[in-house]
């Protein structure tokens, strides 16, 4: 009901303006600055960190393979969690390369197909291929999404929320994890290069080129960062600067809704633990929290330490409608607080009433962000 009401408001506002622009201008300089800040200081460092830590994960796994020490395994687990946190902090911008190239389902499908995994462990030829030099490529091409990505690696490393003991992990399992981690790294390199192009480290660009992975919009000449930064210019898929701003907000809306309605909501309402995403490391609540941090980073124009207030979407919205900006700030903080208050681990507490408060906070955030989009659409400079 509430959503229909909001949708009607948006529709009326849309028709009231008609055009997506004011005075025939498709490019608005202030809006373009907000977009540039967001691409350069929210998206770019998030993906660069993701690339860095997924690369480190492969190295750390190989170090553990060589030493088989518990401290090295613990190190692997820590790197895994750091890398994953950066991925979860990217989920306010799953539009673009992560969706267009199917990178999201490739690296974040869940649950792991346990039968397929067991079949794999019983297949000497596949294990040999995964252990080979091109194991990462073999993995990416042949294993299928339900055996790839973070959750495949998580299954090998963690049990009941803790790193396994080193002796629990067999050679075959480790070979699989290294190959899958290599493929994960490759696709995270692809994400990074797709958004920042030549600003990505040469080794990352070389790897992506070697693997012949796509990195531009619609096989054209723009990377995703340039495409968004050039919103309103010919050649960009964004018809106007305001379309670009609304894309930023839409990305935030999508994850806010998904965390509330699906990631927390489905296990809570359906009382079905099979819908819990990170059951082995038991970091679901950390994941949800990082998803909202992703929204925060988008709204404030940067990851922590890289924000410039006056170039943020927050400052822009504040100028349009200070009350609305206040609502957004409160809604983001409220979602963070309510998720933080969920009893951990989620897998042991998914029917707890605190979860309902978190769901409502996320859905409220989604609704407030809808109002932001309406305000952006109707604002005349």
């Amino acid at each position, binding site marked *: 009901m509430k*959503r*229909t009401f909001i*949708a*009607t408001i948006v*529709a*009326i*506002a*849309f*028709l*009231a*303006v*008609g*055009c*997506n*622009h*004011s*005075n*025939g201008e498709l490019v608005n300089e202030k809006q373009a600055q907000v977009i540039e800040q967001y691409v350069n200081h929210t998206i770019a460092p998030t993906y660069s960190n993701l690339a860095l830590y997924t690369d480190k994960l492969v190295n750390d796994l190989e170090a553990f393979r060589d030493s088989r020490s518990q401290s090295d395994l613990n190190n692997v687990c820590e790197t895994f969690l750091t890398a994953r946190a950066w991925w979860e902090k990217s989920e306010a911008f799953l*539009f*673009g*390369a992560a*969706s*267009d*190239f*199917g990178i999201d*389902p*490739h690296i974040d499908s*869940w*649950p*792991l*197909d*346990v*039968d*397929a995994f067991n*079949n794999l462990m019983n297949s000497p030829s596949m294990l040999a291929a995964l252990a080979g030099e091109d194991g990462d490529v073999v993995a990416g*091409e042949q294993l*299928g*999404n*339900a055996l790839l990505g973070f959750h495949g690696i998580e299954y090998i490393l963690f049990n009941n929320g803790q790193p396994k003991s080193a002796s629990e992990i067999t050679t075959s399992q480790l070979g699989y994890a290294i190959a899958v981690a290599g493929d994960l790294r490759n696709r995270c390199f692809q994400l990074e290069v797709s958004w920042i192009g030549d600003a990505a480290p040469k080794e990352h660009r070389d790897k992506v080129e070697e693997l012949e992975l796509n990195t531009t*919009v*619609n096989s054209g000449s723009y990377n995703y960062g340039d495409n968004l930064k050039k919103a309103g210019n010919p050649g960009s*898929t*964004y*018809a106007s600067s305001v*379309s670009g701003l*609304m*894309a930023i907000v*839409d*990305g935030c*809306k*999508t994850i806010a*809704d998904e965390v509330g*309605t*699906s990631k927390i*909501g*489905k296990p809570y*309402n359906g009382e079905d633990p*099979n*819908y819990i995403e990170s059951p082995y490391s038991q970091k679901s609540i950390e994941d949800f929290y990082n998803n909202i941090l992703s929204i925060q980073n988008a709204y404030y124009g940067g990851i922590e330490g890289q924000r410039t207030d006056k170039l943020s979407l927050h400052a822009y919205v504040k100028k349009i409608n200070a009350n609305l900006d206040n609502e957004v700030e409160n809604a983001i903080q409220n979602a963070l607080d309510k998720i933080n208050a969920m009893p951990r681990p989620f897998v042991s507490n998914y029917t707890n009433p605190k979860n309902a408060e978190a769901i409502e906070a996320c859905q409220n955030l989604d609704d407030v962000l809808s109002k932001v989009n309406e305000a952006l659409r109707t604002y*005349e400079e």
Partner: protein
Amino acid sequence: MGVFAGCNRPENTELSWIEEETYAGGKLGTTFNSSSSAYEDPAPAVTDIAAFKYGEYLFERDFTQNTPPFNGLGPLYIRSSCIACHPGYGHGKRMDRYAAGDWGNGYLLVVTDQNGNYVSTLTGMPQTKAVPPFKAPIDESQIQISWLDYTDEWGNRFPDGETYSLIYPEVTIPASAYYVPLEVGGQPLAYGSEVVRLESTIGIYGTGLLDAIPDDSLKAQYLKESNAGVPLNPAMWAGTDWATTGLYGKTNHPKRFTYACSRGPLQDGPGANAIWNITNVTRGDRRYHYMTETYARVASQDPDVQAAFYTYFPDYNKTGNPETDIYNYLMSKDLPAEMSNDDYVNLMVWHRGLAVPAARNLDDAEVQKGRKLFREIGCAYCHRPSWTTGPDRFTDPNGFFTTGDQRLPRYPNQKIWPYTDMVQHRLCMVNDIRTGWCRTTPLWGRGLSAICTGSSDRLHDCRARNVIEAIMWHGSAQSDARWTVEKFRNLSKEDRDAVVKFINAI
């Protein structure tokens, strides 16, 4: 309707058509989202948003063999998720190879004899994936797709000198790739004499609205075209009424979905079937595999499969004779249901509930010029701009849902703008679609394809990389659209660009 400022405004009297056509899905079926999730929104008609979101999960997630909650993949399958074929919920992407795991590969293989009759020893949508110990009916690594250049009678050039490029696919499958012999109508077909074509997915939003077009309205359209002398597919229309083969199953509903007009009511349409046959996930009313008897026989007699079957499927050791047990497992009609009825209902809420993005920029002068030309030169004849839905008391031939079932979103009395007459025509292209007859594909929402999917390939096998190429593929000498293409060719560049801009605006 509010205060206007800034832009050039049309006269108030003209405002009504802009408002009306902006609501491409009617008031109940339109979203004003024009970002990358524009194809994914619930329509205002959806009352149970939670059900919609739970259904969405089933569409987006990869299925596993037996690990819940998205379990039931196999023993043979076409893809492991729905969204992989429907990237961003939109049109499939042009591919240089056929791999089930390639994101956005929305192609189905169409394997027939030289006369377009389906090879019966493969499923109608052939499977290229299998779970151990089974082997895929076709080894996809051996499928060859070549993209060939095509030069039309005008040298791929407009009278004013602007050129365009045309390409089309040639697909070959060597004999070594097939696990089963080929047969058509009970007769063997020699390897190498089969014809292989590609058919891609189109966007899935708005099918609930198309389903709400009354049967009588479709009939009136066929009658109008028939009376005007437009050639119609005799499989669908017999002069003054539906051909018997134009009606769906044992119902009186005309077929309206898929290129081939092979499906009638949406509740037994492509989606209702695909959630079962793409992944081979059984459910309460489909407790059998998407399978051919030939495959079951070949697999049951395959020593490799016999040797390993009981290891992988211990529960199906019923007789101790692997050949018997394999065959019976594959051909069983009372398998346990892998997808719950609740999940299926949620999926249908989502499927019927997908909104169509509002048209954009209809107040732009160039778009308006394009809109006018689109109608003047005859594009709108086949790409009929609008329909009005009826009471939407949809039916379910499977009897799973009651008529007009309250659990599902409905779109009564909506003026919608899909830009299709829902009738098949022929473009007579090289390496044409099977039978040559193709339902006019809806154009609504396609302008957002690059934003929503990262690609904007068009036509049934994704041969057109942009709107101009799509238009020019309508230009063969025998094409039903030839007359219109001749007029398009003679437009000035500004006018051609205006038509393209309009097509991208709807």
